[in-house]
């Protein structure tokens, strides 16, 4: 407003005032009327409703649902629309902005116009804001159920209001991929208690469903709660849930009750919400309830997320089933085929199923119409449709959660798990780092290293998988895949392949393939340091292998002897036939290098005199290294603990204390057995080891 406008306004105002009325009594009368009315209303409220007073404040009662005074509710509600990081928008930005705008209003709107019709922008803004605040307030009142009501009708909502709403108000936005069940159970963030102490697993599941799909909870209440408790359906089999929803009263368990055709009654979106509520899209839980039956605690998967998503959603030809005709007799096969075609449930067959099939099939009995076909499939095994087509069962939220969880889980553990599997199954023959060694299955044979860059770059994962699964019967490697009668399932083999593959990036031992090409000029000292020092010590004073500087060793071996030993190796020791890997020249140089080492008494003596002192310390480690790879939990003699050593086996007992001659074990390791083959099949153990075991048996096979 410029000076002129100000003057005009003041003059106009003066005229208005003169035409006006005196404050007393005219205006004051109006004011008094309104004030009196207000007073009457207040007094009436005080009389009829009174000022409420709830229970005394109880700081330890976290189940109370806090509510601010009603005129702050709109801010409270606003917060819900700005979750997480955005919270500052609702807490700071919007209120501060509003106050600043209010203060600046006279400067922002400086026109001479005063009537609201003439100032549409301001009027719309102000009325809009007022309506917004009103809307938020109403919304907030509608969304937060009063605590009493909540705990009556809806147990899950009550769980929420009692436990979560205190801090989280009405809704929680969960970042994708969160393991909500764990977060709730363990209370993973600051200030949040671990609820697992207060809630059952079912309750936590229900709560997770409620948080991730609040709409689903309402639907459940409306349609299902008449007959079902929430806790009975949450985290149950998604296949059944889906079937129940899709099939309406054609779904067998619903046959007796009159229920509507759900697919007509509730929309697709609603069904999704309902399923998400019952089986929360929470990766780890989904995995635990649906996949763990077959996959155990973890899966090894080295591919891309998309591949996994396809694999899971398409299901189908996924797991290999062993050919049962190798294990079961014809009658048993008949019974099983009968069982899956007609579900004829004689107790025996169920036992059979539980014994052989349930470990993969769980409680889900596969069904087939054609008896002959069923029998054929069971007998011959192979790839068959074990995995459900999850894509048709799970909602896309659930699938997403499952896939991202699996990816994460497979990433975190597979290398370690693979290493463990390798150590248990392969290291006996291939060495801890795949460096190879003498072949226990065939004398005069050396297992070449499998950890070299050369080996790994020339074989893809599929080949490695096949080698492990089917074995290399011609070279004495037995099949490891369960399909071929071995101990490992596909996931485990995959895990191991991933581990072996990891050597390519960080080779465990330097065994460059170039070593055997004489063109590479590694000095004999370097070759020694890289290859021989692993066993004979960096100084040649011995470690696993004997000292090369020992006076006795030197006296007993000529240059020719040493050359021979290096070239041919020692049978059944890690001293392999280096002649296969190194050139004659290199070996000659090595021999000279060794002979050049100063003679010294300080070395480790080879073959310390055997002496048995403890089963756990002396004998069991030999069993573990030499026998356990085959004699484990697979059946037959089990070498893993004292009890099983003494009692298990098809011809148990294998050990007769104090009686070496008649103990089957002793016969087998000394190659004096009356039937079957020598053990270990590849060749004798070292004399030391044999002696230890024999000593132990003659000492009465004590468990010490």
């Amino acid at each position, binding site marked *: *407003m410029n000076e002129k406008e100000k003057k005009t306004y*003041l003059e106009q*105002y003066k005229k*208005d*005032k003169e*035409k*006006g*009325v*005196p*404050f*007393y009594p005219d*205006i*004051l009368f109006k*004011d008094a009327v*309104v004030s009196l009315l*207000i*007073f009457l209303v*207040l*007094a009436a*409220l*005080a009389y009829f409703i*009174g*000022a409420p*007073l*709830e*229970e*005394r*404040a*109880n*700081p330890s*009662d976290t189940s109370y649902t*806090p*509510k*601010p*005074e*009603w*005129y*702050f509710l709109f801010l409270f509600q606003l*917060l819900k629309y700005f979750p997480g990081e955005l*919270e*500052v928008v609702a*807490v*700071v930005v919007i209120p501060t902005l509003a106050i600043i705008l*209010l*203060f600046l*209003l*006279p400067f922002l*709107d400086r026109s001479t116009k*005063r*009537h*609201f*019709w*003439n*100032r549409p922008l*301001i*009027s719309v803004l*102000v009325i809009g804001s007022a309506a917004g605040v009103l809307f938020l307030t109403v919304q907030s009142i509608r969304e937060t159920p009063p605590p009493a009501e909540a705990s009556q009708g809806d147990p899950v909502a009550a769980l929420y209001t009692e436990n979560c709403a*205190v*801090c989280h*108000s009405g809704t929680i936005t969960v970042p994708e991929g969160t393991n909500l069940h764990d977060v709730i159970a363990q209370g993973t963030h600051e200030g949040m208690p671990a609820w697992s102490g207060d809630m059952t697993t079912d309750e936590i599941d229900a709560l997770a469903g409620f948080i991730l799909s609040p709409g689903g909870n309402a639907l459940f209440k409306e349609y299902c709660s008449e007959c079902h408790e929430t806790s009975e359906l949450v985290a149950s089999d998604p296949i059944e849930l889906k079937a129940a929803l899709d099939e309406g009263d054609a779904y067998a368990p619903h046959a007796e009750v009159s229920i509507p055709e759900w697919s007509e009654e509730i929309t697709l979106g609603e069904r999704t919400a309902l399923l998400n509520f019952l089986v929360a899209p929470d990766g780890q839980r989904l995995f635990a309830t649906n996949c763990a039956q077959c996959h155990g605690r973890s899966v090894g998967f080295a591919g891309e997320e998309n591949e996994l998503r396809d694999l899971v959603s398409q299901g189908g030809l996924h797991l290999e089933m062993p050919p049962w005709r190798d294990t079961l007799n014809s009658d048993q096969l008949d019974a099983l085929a009968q069982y899956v075609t007609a579900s004829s449930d004689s107790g025996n067959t169920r036992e059979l199923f539980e014994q052989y099939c349930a470990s993969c099939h769980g409680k889900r009995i596969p069904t087939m119409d054609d008896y002959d076909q069923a029998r054929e499939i069971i007998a011959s095994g192979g790839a068959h449709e074990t995995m459900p087509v999850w894509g048709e069962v799970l909602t896309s939220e659930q699938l997403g959660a499952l896939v991202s969880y699996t990816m994460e889980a497979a990433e975190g553990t597979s290398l370690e798990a693979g290493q463990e599997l390798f150590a248990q199954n392969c290291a006996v023959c291939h060495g801890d780092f795949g460096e190879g060694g003498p072949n226990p299955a065939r004398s005069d044979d050396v297992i070449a290293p499998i950890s070299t860059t050369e080996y790994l770059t020339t074989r893809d994962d599929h080949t490695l998988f096949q080698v492990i699964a089917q074995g290399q019967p011609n070279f004495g490697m037995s099949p490891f895949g369960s399909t071929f009668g071995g101990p490992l399932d596909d996931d485990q083999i995959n895990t191991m392949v991933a581990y072996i593959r990891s050597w390519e990036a960080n080779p465990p031992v330097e065994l460059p393939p170039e070593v055997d090409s004489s063109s590479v000029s590694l000095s004999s000292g370097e070759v020694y340091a890289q290859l021989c020092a692993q066993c004979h010590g960096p100084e040649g004073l011995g470690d696993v292998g004997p000292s090369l500087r020992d006076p006795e060793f030197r006296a007993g071996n000529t240059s020719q002897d040493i050359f021979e030993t290096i070239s041919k190796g020692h049978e059944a020791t890690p001293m392999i036939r280096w002649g296969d890997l190194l050139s004659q020249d290199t070996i000659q140089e090595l021999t000279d290098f060794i002979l050049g080492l100063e003679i010294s008494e300080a070395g480790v003596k080879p073959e310390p005199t055997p002496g048995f002192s403890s089963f756990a310390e002396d004998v069991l480690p030999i069993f573990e290294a030499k026998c356990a790879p085959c004699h484990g939990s697979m059946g037959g003699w089990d070498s893993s603990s004292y009890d099983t050593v003494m009692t298990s086996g098809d011809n148990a007992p294998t050990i007769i204390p104090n009686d070496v001659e008649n103990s089957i074990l002793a016969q087998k390791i000394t190659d004096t057995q009356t039937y079957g083959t020598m053990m270990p099949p590849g060749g004798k153990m070292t004399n030391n080891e044999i002696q230890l075991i024999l000593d132990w048996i003659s000492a009465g096979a004590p468990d010490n």
Partner: protein
Amino acid sequence: MITKIANWFDERVGWKAVWETIFLRKIPKVNWLYTLGSATLFTAVNQAVTGILLTIYYVPTPDHAYDSVQYITTQIPMGWLIRGLHHWGASAMVILTVLHMLRVILLGAYKYPREVTWFTGVFLLLVVVGFGFTGYLLPWDQKAYWGSSVGTRIAGSTPVVGDWILRVMRGGPDLSAITLVRFFGVHVWVLPASLILLLGIHMYLVIKIGISAVPKREEE
């Protein structure tokens, strides 16, 4: 007789001049919306009176706050009325203040020459909200405790200074006895003092400048 006494006082105090400037001043013809301000003023007086009465018995400690409020409501004659008026009056005052502000905005009454009146008004709004926020904790019942607990925590989620705000409001990391005395102190001393000061300026300006006339719709 009465006129005599009145004149005696007027000679010494000069109340007639005050009376004339406040009550006998002429005012443009205005509508009922213009009563919202004085209605707010009325609730402010109502709050002050009932609030002062409440402080007689109210004890601002976690041990006694709840009991004292209960005592006021059930034992003291008319205690229920006093507390009821204060309780409902608080809501009424918030509503009326906002409505009064809306009327001022929609009728352009914040414009020249009433900008300063408007500024004091915005401060008044903040003071009223402050009254509501601090008063809510005083009865020390469940809704008071948990409502204020969440309220202060929300304020405490402000970036950078949030923690400081939280500690200043609560007098420590948790809602405690200190919080209660702080809220009480603010509710019955700091805010009422601010309210009186601001209202004084607000009313002085309203009387001095005169209430705005109802604006006419201009044809464009």
